[in-house]
């Protein structure tokens, strides 16, 4: 067959259907980011529950899943965190084969730099804690750091010299969009409905049951959407920065605040940066994506916002920090900057579990660091939705911890919070 050069390339086959919503599902998940998709995948794979819909107000994985800087690591200080994040990392190691999709998961390691004596003490403590928890981590001297990342400035002549670093060799990066598509394809193939352009606007609550059981509105039985009402046995919120705007309609206050988090990329460069470098103290992290762009990020903008953009000085500060660490990047051009809206919790740890309203469950509060946890968020949230009870891994992560005081305080303890 002769090929007409003016013809458009053939449309590749879609990876998932675009079904109309049914009237009713066993489980409705709100939000088709990485977490919502992974939850759907594990509901089917681990629990055999496939009468499930994932409702997405925009397009599939167009929220923080499309905006994050893809750093994956599990070198967290506390036992509860190491267990959860390392479970995720072990699942990442099996996913390319299991999902049958090469999403360029690259275990190139992460260096978390120390620039002050307090940093050094905290970093060593974290590395020792990691070792006790079976997480690969070691403490490196500046010379050893320079061997792993030769382009990093380890001179003692700078304002905040590198005094050493922790290194986690199994850490790395992945191509976030492809992770979402891999999960969507599998979930769809197992019969789960992924419904884009479907915004949840409110909840259907049950009246008090026959025989005086329960009280009015003590449990949810469905959601209102721009595409009609959909009934649900259980509802799981995986809506990241918008979660509290949903729960507030039921009078549930969540200890989360929504902030912009920005990032930026440079133009494409030759491969030069072999690992991931994070610095809490000068506050930036830098990796190089497969295509060649440098990927930079830092902390949140200080104020609450839903505007999906932040302030320029935040970008300027992280670029100044990056150039201090990597003088050779001084002449790289910024290609683009963007922002996502992240839901930050008081102890920098997520909230995964039941709510005071029956049948309603939340997976939120992941703030600036939930991409790396995508497999574990899905694993534990699916378990919670399937059984009504938390999995051992997310048991400590309930809403009740804010009243009991059993916080999982990872602030500052775990390097830059990504």
């Amino acid at each position, binding site marked *: 067959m002769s090929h007409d050069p003016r013809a458009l390339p053939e449309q590749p086959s879609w990876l998932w259907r675009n079904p109309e919503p049914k009237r009713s599902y066993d489980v409705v998940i709100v939000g088709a980011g990485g977490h919502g998709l992974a939850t759907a995948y594990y509901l089917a794979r681990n629990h055999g529950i496939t009468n499930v819909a994932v409702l997405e107000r925009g397009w599939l994985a167009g929220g923080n899943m499309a905006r994050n800087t893809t750093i994956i690591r599990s070198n967290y200080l506390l036992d509860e965190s190491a267990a959860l994040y390392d479970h995720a990392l072990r699942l990442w190691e099996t996913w390319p084969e299991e999902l049958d999709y090469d999403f360029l998961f690259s275990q190139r390691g992460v260096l978390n730099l120390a620039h002050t004596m307090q940093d050094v003490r905290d970093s060593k403590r974290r590395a020792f804690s990691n070792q006790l928890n079976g997480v690969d981590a070691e403490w490196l001297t500046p010379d050893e750091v320079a061997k792993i990342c030769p382009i990093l400035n380890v001179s003692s002549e700078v304002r905040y010299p590198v005094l050493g670093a922790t290194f986690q060799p199994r850490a790395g990066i992945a191509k976030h969009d492809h992770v979402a598509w891999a999960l969507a394809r599998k979930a769809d193939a197992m019969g789960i409905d992924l419904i884009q352009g479907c915004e949840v606007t409110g909840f259907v609550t049950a009246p008090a049951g026959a025989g005086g059981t329960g009280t009015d509105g003590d449990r949810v039985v469905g959601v209102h959407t721009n595409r009609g009402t959909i009934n649900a046995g259980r509802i799981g919120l995986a809506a990241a920065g*918008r979660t*509290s705007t949903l729960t507030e309609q039921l009078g549930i206050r969540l200890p989360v*605040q929504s902030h912009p988090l920005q990032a930026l990329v440079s133009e494409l460069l030759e491969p030069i940066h072999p690992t991931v470098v994070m610095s809490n103290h000068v506050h930036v992290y830098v990796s190089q994506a497969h295509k060649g762009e440098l990927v930079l990020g830092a902390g949140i903008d200080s*104020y*609450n*916002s*839903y*505007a999906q953009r932040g302030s320029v*000085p935040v970008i300027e500060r992280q670029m100044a920090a990056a150039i201090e660490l990597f003088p050779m990047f001084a002449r790289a051009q910024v290609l683009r900057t963007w922002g996502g809206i992240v839901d930050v919790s008081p102890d920098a740890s997520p909230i995964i579990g039941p709510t005071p309203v029956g049948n309603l469950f939340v997976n939120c509060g992941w703030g600036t660091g939930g991409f790396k946890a995508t497999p574990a968020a899905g694993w534990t949230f699916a378990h919670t939705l399937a059984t009504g009870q938390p999995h051992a891994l997310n048991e400590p992560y309930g809403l009740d911890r804010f*009243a009991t005081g059993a916080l999982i305080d990872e602030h500052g303890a775990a390097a830059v919070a990504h």
Partner: protein
Amino acid sequence: MLLIECPWCGGRDETEFGYGGQAHLSYPDDPHELSDERWAEYLFMRDNPRGPFAERWVHSAGCRRWFNVLRDTATNEITASYPIDAREPVAR
């Protein structure tokens, strides 16, 4: 970048200010009276609206005074700026 109106110094760049979160909160009269749930409410629960939000700012690199701002968190539009002890203006 936000342009923030300090009630004493006038409009200045956001970089001169520090953020203090939700405004019009006060320390409980008698903390010992509170249940663990009420104490958690005071310590950790804050409004997080998409829309008008009364919030605290401090003019750290200027007069160093705290004041309140009414800002729309969906658009970042600031509609009022007022002293810390004044009542919250009604959102437009």
